[in-house]
């Protein structure tokens, strides 16, 4: 949509500099003026923020986007030669793995740390969250709200047989959700739940959040779980068909009475071998500033990670909720267990 | 089963290859097609087989139209077999599979039987399992022949099927093939470069040149009464000389010959082609003779003398056959007489 797609020039800015010279020599040359970002966030709206950062500080942002795990792998391999100054990833599990594999160094800047609520940063301050997204239950309003469905656990209820559509087990969002089950109920509990869900599947796991949301609206699927920013995005889309889909969707924030709705984060950490620490900290500081946090919210429809940042109206419109206060590091720690649970439950 | 070719013409792009060819072949008859390289023999066979489309004319088989302008039934619907000049064996199949390719309608036992029979005929029993790539040139050619003969088609077209087969085998093979063709009652056209083969193998001979048929006739006709110098030239190692009638003599660039029957009034001063075979000349030694013996070579049918005119500068030779008596000596002089057989005079076409 219009808000989420920045004007053309912004995204053209980043690749404008020649890519053929080595990143490392480039870093050397302009040591004072750059910050090298490895990012697994690939939203056009982020590019606008980097541009704004450069305008404000004169520090040039060199961007390398990729998948979280590969970026971590690359940093591990590069070790002390790594040009990376900060790493941004989109899932708590990945942040946890980054810590696990030692690519971060602790953030010591209290002014930054203080902005972030406790369970949205690493206990040892290896990273802080930038944004959060809730994973909510979605149904088709025309079919009426499913009665008694208030918990994730209820999705395993045989009452919803043939209703549920899910993504595959390669998808990190669901893995994190399951990981939270594993944290609370152990592998067996999680598996029992997963089996219940599997037996309620309307079709084998497939597609992505957006496509499943459309299936809900079309009536092919009765229930799913989806990230809030996808739902909000449909609502503000310029495309009329998208807005029609949005209008048909009903949202349930699960576990309001108990643990709170499952929330995931994207986060940023300082690279262990950063050579532009000042600039890197400046960038982190910038990205956690309340006004910029608001931009995240309006640009990509996410919830700000910083408590006093203003949430965008289309996100507020989804409703208010109590979030799970499980430390998101737990999600990473239990991710492998989540995969095993899904394998055993036959959730492909 | 009569194959009738009527006034066929054909061209590859702009290159005219056939210009009005007509020919009939009876059931069981073998007609040889003889002519210089590039004259259109292969093209003619390809037209009959349906591999080329004719530009005009018609082909009839047994009273039924086989092809004409705008009507070109595909090759597989024509009862026509073709031995390709370039063999065209199937490289992935072994010899037996190649031969049995055209026999798919027969039961397997019959097929095997026929294959064995043909392999014996072409002297390749025991080669069943070889791939064509592991055969010598002549062996490949024999397989190609056997493959085409296998289905005993009503019309059989053979494009130089013996070119790379040695004489002895060739003789056997052509007798055997002739028998097979006669048994099957096929109307056959045999392209060959070997006039002797044509004479021996065929009921009739057609002589082609430059996309046209010059003469069709029995071997005797063709040998004894050639209608064109080109025809006469083909047989018996003939040589062709330009000449002008001068009284009872023919003056040629390499010497003069007496004309056996003398010349008529109307021939006087005209230009002629003399086509003469070594056997159409006789030689006797004579110290005053107009010819000098330059060389003397063996052929299986006797000695051939090479002579040049004593009174010309030309080094061109004329070849004369002699018997097996005492040979003339190189350097001696002698007379040459034109005999009234195997020597032919053709009035030159006016330019």
């Amino acid at each position: 949509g219009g808000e989420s797609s920045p004007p053309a020039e912004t995204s053209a800015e980043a690749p404008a500099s020649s890519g053929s010279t080595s990143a490392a020599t480039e870093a050397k040359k302009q040591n004072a003026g750059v910050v090298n970002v490895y990012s697994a966030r690939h939203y056009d709206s982020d590019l606008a923020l980097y541009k704004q950062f450069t305008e404000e500080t004169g520090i040039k942002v060199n961007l390398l986007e990729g998948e979280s795990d590969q970026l971590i792998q690359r940093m591990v391999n590069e070790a002390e030669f790594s040009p990376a100054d900060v790493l941004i990833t989109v899932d708590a599990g990945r942040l946890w793995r980054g810590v696990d594999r030692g690519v971060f160094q602790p953030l010591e800047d209290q002014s930054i740390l203080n902005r972030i609520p406790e369970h949205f940063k690493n206990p040892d301050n290896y990273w802080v969250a930038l944004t959060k997204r809730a994973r909510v239950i979605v149904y088709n309003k025309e079919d009426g709200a499913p009665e008694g469905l208030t918990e994730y656990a209820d999705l395993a209820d045989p009452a919803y047989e043939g209703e549920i559509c899910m993504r595959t087990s390669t998808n990190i969002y669901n893995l994190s959700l399951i990981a939270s089950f594993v944290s609370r109920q152990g592998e067996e509990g999680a598996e029992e739940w997963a089996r219940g869900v599997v037996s309620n599947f309307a079709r084998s796991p497939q597609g992505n959040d957006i496509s499943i949301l459309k299936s809900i609206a079309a009536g092919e699927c009765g229930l799913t779980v989806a990230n809030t920013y996808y739902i909000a995005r449909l609502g503000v889309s310029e495309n009329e068909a998208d807005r029609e889909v949005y209008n048909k969707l009903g949202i349930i924030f699960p576990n309001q009475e108990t643990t709170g709705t499952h929330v995931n984060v994207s986060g940023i950490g300082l690279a262990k071998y950063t050579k532009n620490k000042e600039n890197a900290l400046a960038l982190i500081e910038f990205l956690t500033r309340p006004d910029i946090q608001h931009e995240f919210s309006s640009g990509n429809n996410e919830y700000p990670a910083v408590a006093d940042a203003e949430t965008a109206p289309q996100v507020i419109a989804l409703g208010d909720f109590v979030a799970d206060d499980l430390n998101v590091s737990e999600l990473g720690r239990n991710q492998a267990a989540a995969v095993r649970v899904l394998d055993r439950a036959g959730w492909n | 089963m009569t194959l009738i070719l009527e006034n066929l013409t054909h061209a590859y792009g702009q290159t005219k290859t056939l210009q009005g060819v007509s020919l009939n072949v009876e059931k069981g008859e073998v007609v040889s097609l003889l002519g210089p390289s590039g004259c259109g023999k292969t093209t003619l066979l390809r037209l009959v087989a349906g591999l080329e489309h004719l530009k005009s004319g018609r082909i009839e088989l047994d009273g039924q139209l086989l092809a004409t302008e705008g009507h070109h039934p595909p090759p597989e619907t024509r009862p026509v077999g073709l031995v390709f000049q370039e063999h065209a064996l199937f490289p992935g199949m072994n010899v037996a599979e190649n031969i049995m390719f055209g026999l798919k309608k027969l039961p397997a036992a019959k097929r095997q039987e026929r294959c064995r029979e043909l392999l014996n005929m072409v002297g390749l029993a025991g080669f069943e399992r070889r791939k064509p790539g592991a055969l010598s040139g002549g062996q490949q050619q024999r397989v190609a022949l056997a493959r085409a003969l296998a289905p005993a088609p009503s019309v059989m077209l053979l494009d130089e099927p013996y070119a790379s087969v040695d004489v002895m085998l060739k003789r056997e093979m052509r007798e055997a093939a002739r028998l097979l063709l006669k048994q099957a009652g096929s109307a056959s056209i045999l392209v060959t470069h070997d006039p002797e083969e044509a004479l021996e193998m065929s009921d009739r001979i057609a002589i082609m040149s430059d996309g046209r048929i010059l003469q069709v006739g029995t071997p005797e006709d063709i040998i004894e009464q050639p209608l064109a110098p080109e025809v006469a030239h083909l047989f018996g190692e003939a040589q062709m000389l330009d000449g002008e009638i001068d009284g009872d003599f023919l003056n040629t660039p390499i010497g003069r010959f007496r004309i056996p029957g003398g010349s008529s009034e109307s021939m006087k001063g005209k230009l002629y082609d003399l086509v003469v075979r070594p056997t159409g000349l006789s030689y006797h030694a004579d110290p005053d003779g107009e010819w000098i013996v330059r060389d003397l070579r063996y052929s299986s049918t006797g000695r051939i003398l090479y002579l040049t005119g004593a009174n010309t500068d030309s080094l061109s030779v004329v070849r004369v056959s002699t018997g097996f008596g005492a040979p003339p000596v190189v350097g001696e002089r002698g007379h040459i007489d034109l005999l009234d057989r195997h020597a032919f005079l053709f009035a030159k076409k006016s330019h």
Partner: protein
Amino acid sequence: MSVLNALPTRAESETPRPLRVEWHAIGIIALCIFLIIPILGILFGSMAPSEGSWDHLVSTVLWDYVLNTLGLLLIVAVLTSTMGTGAAWLVAVTDFPGRRIFEWLLVLPVAAPAYIIAYVYTDLLEFAGPVQTWIRDVTGWGASDYWFPPIRSLPGAGVMLALVLYPYVYLLARSSFLNQSRTRFAAARSLGASPLRAFWRVALPSAKAAILGGMALAMMETAADFGVADYFGVTTFSTGIYRAWYGLGDPVSSLRLAGLLLVIVAILLMIERAARNDSDAPAIARDSLSPPMKLGPVLSIGAMIGCAIPILFGFLIPVLRLIWLALEADGVRSVSQFVIFARNSFSLSIGTALIALLLALFLAYAQRSRTRADRLPVSVAATRLATLGYALPGTLLAVGLLLPLTSFDKILSSWVENQFGLGLGLILTGSVFALIYAYVIRFLTVAYNTVEPAVGAIPTSMDEAARTLGSRTWRIVSKVHFPGLRPALYSAALLVFIDTMRELPATLLLRPFNFETLATRVYRLASDERLAEASTAALALVVIGLIPVLLLNKVSKRH
């Protein structure tokens, strides 16, 4: 070994000789080692002790991986070979209205990445898509009142992949059919074989090496595909490898899966090699100029439909839909930003195509030469391994390459630092060099499989004739072979070019800072589930892929 078979003439006459140092062989093995680093890395890596996840995988999902992967490979093999071979034969050997146009239109689908096609088709055909919605609107049926083939399914994935992969078979088969002796085909027909039987018994066996080569490519790409399989929820080795590494966090299990996949692919390739047989074309097809077989009106219509189907589904529908989406998303506004992405994509692809082509030629010739000891089994095996890279999921290849590259970089960098006191940083990693290196490893297979049958089909008698006329290897290759190889070389360059254009995982991981290609651009948007916005970039990707397709058409016309 196929090449040996392809030259049935006199190869056996070689008297065995003692081994001696053959520079050729050493060169080949060195090159191959250079190329199989990531594969070796995987094979070694998979031997490390696993952390227990392996047993878990074996007891739960491994059989799904095996069955689904084999199923997918089977579907792709059947569909690509029938579509590719059938279409190639129609346009190469028969004549019907529009043949010339179809001849090059049929290549077009190769320009579209499979995952884009998959996105577009699901968008069109899924329950919520316009087609089913329309059906429901017209008929008034509800969700459960009718059956519609589920697009996101194993067969669906097979069809998607086959639609973009059949051109591999098509291109290779076509050039093989064009080079074949028509006389042989004519011989079969004059022996009473219908065109179909003649095709089956004579034309097809001669083209077998090419067709199988194309199928092998399609199948390897299928084995390596992640995008379609994941989106369609088909659990294959490729998705399993990804999950084992990133979900289970167990690289060892991931590498074991990859090793297993490679073994399966290698077995399939061995079957493929064994199935090839002699296909020595004579040098001169006498009637190569004579008109191709004219089809009657009924057959013509059949042929046109046959050729139109793959084009329609592999290209026309998806591209029109992309255009539709691009217009809807107002993508026209953002066209200008594609210039730089396109330039990056284009130059990388050209570079990769050229390098891969040269290496493929080198390897193909090494396999062909029969008088040298470079046909040592080692070098044959090395070549086989070196051309297996295509079956590796790109992610794994990238990771597999990252390790040796950075190690080398670090050594280099420390050395420079010690010697000159210069902080060099990492030169190779994160440079265009690393990218091209990765591409070449991956796409050499494509170039090799395309070039090798053509090289193998050159009759040895050509070499022999040239050599008795005093020519050495280089002159023989450039003067005698090149004219015949040209179509295959162009096809190989085209395929590598297009494959490079759309390569994603290695590009993502190994590229320098601020370096975007069209493929990464499409990925950014598509991975954010913004199909509409991605459509413009996807279109650009397809359009640039068309450039070499058009060029190919131009040069092959001259042929």
